């Protein structure tokens, strides 16, 4: 029998995004030897998100996160908008309580992630940028390291934090390719505007920020939505559309993106701006169904790679779930290293910790949300119905006024929606969201 090879590291983390960096940071803090491998030229250079980070979890890991990290604006204004062709109905929720304590901030990942990686380095992790991990090394059912080109590096535990495409876990047979209705594509531009212009247009002061979410005509009726977030001196704007619906409706994704930016209710926000960057990102929308297997002998999967994103209709979350999964993974991996047993059975503590935390609990609470959000009516008829009811109330055409309930009933009669659908969707929505 040959002597087992002494690994090069306790832990190798693949991918320097939020999940990868936070896992690496915490394991390095525990005194483990940690290698963080990143395929981008530098950490952050492959990373992109819509831009809103619910920041409490991050503050538990980095108590000075909000004052030290390069974050953009504190979100104190949430603007939820049904946008039709010529009309729109919105809820404009502003609240000083969202500023103190801070609830959510906008971020630009090419700026934030290098800060996170620097924290890992300070804590003692070794960072290797510009290196693509091609696959994991296995011995029997066990992951024992990574292969990058001709190099082989070994570790007691590998952490797959390689993002939504999750090639590492799929390649080793742990995870399957997700179905199209569980995936969406996000297309985004960063548009520069003077700070003062942004504050005037969104009626913000200081480092306050706004998050606009839009559904309806902004995606030409394709399941998904539009977003517009304020950074310090730029806007993050884009769309997210479900792949099954995009292909079924034979739409061109860039046409939808252009349509949103040129929409009469969106274009004025961008006036005079200059596009700084254009990017896109696949989004896991399957919720709990997409989490699946995240632990095997010698490996755990965290963040987007584990399918950890949530669309609750009002909030769209991914980065905070990445933080939560990293915290759970670092605790479980640390304990397994202490026990000198990094088998699937021991590392399963990661899954238990994850599902005992806000991450797993929220995935369970919103388990029905993805199916509900596949309701086609959400992306056309409901917005139009809302506008029609309000038009009936505001349009003083010299006909005698009617009570709002009667106006609504009249609008519904002219809408393709049926009252039973409305009731059914109302109940389903109340249960799912």
């Amino acid at each position, binding site marked *: 029998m040959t002597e087992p090879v002494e690994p090069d590291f306790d832990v190798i983390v693949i991918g320097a995004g939020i999940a990868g960096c936070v896992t690496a940071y915490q394991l390095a803090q525990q005194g483990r030897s940690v290698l963080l491998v990143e395929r981008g030229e530098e950490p952050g250079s492959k990373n992109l998100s819509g831009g809103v980070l619910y920041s409490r979890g991050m503050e538990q890991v980095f108590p000075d996160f909000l004052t030290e990290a390069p974050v953009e604006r504190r979100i104190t204004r949430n603007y939820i908008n049904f946008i039709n062709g010529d009309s729109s109905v919105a809820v404009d929720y502003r609240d000083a309580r969202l500023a103190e304590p801070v609830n959510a901030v906008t971020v630009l990942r090419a700026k934030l992630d290098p800060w996170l990686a620097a924290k890992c380095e300070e804590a003692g992790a070794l960072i290797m940028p510009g290196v693509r991990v091609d696959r994991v090394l296995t011995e029997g059912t066990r992951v024992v390291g990574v292969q990058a080109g001709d190099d082989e590096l070994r570790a007691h535990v590998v952490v797959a934090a390689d993002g939504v495409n999750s*090639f590492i876990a799929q390649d080793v047979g742990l995870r399957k390719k997700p179905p*199209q209705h569980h995936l969406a594509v996000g297309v985004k531009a960063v548009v520069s505007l003077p700070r003062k212009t942004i504050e005037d247009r969104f009626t913000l002061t200081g480092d306050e920020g706004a998050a606009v979410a839009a559904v309806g005509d902004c995606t030409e009726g394709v399941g998904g939505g539009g977003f517009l977030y304020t950074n310090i001196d730029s806007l993050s704007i884009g769309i997210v559309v479900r792949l099954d619906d*995009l292909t079924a409706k034979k739409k061109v994704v860039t046409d939808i993106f252009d349509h949103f930016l040129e929409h009469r209710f969106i*274009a004025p926000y961008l006036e005079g701006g200059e*596009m700084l960057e254009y990017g*896109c990102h696949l989004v896991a929308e399957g919720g709990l169904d997409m989490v699946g297997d995240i632990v095997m002998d010698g490996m755990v999967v965290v963040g987007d790679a584990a399918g950890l994103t949530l669309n609750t209709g009002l909030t769209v979350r991914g980065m905070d779930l990445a933080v939560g999964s990293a915290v759970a993974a670092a605790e479980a991996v640390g304990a397994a290293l202490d026990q000198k047993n990094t088998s699937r059975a021991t590392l399963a503590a990661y899954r238990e910790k994850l599902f005992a935390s806000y991450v797993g609990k929220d995935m369970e609470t919103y388990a029905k949300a993805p199916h509900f959000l596949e309701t086609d009516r959400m992306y056309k008829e409901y917005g139009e119905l809302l506008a029609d009811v309000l038009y009936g109330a505001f349009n003083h055409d010299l006909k005698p006024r009617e009570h709002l309930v009667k106006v609504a009933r009249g609008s519904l009669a002219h809408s393709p929606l049926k009252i039973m659908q409305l009731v059914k969707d109302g109940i389903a929505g109340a249960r799912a969201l």
Partner: protein
Amino acid sequence: MKPLPVTERLTKNRFNLDEEESHIEVNQEIAKATGTGKAIVACCPAHVYSEDPDGTIAVEYAACLECGTCLAIAAPGALKWHYPRGGFGVQFREG
């Protein structure tokens, strides 16, 4: 602000082009037979794919923003797509 055409939009980004190796390969026969060809032309935000008059799918891999949407919708065997080699491809400065 009128959105620029996609090709001009992409000039705003920074890319490290891997001149030796493409990370994308289309199986033309399967792409045509399954409809994957037309689908990836429509769904790619960077317009990496285009259809020639004879139905062949042309690939401009240098423009790829590495999201993986094409792979997610491709029929089995129609597309080989992986990340570019380390250090190559798009390098976001905003993200």
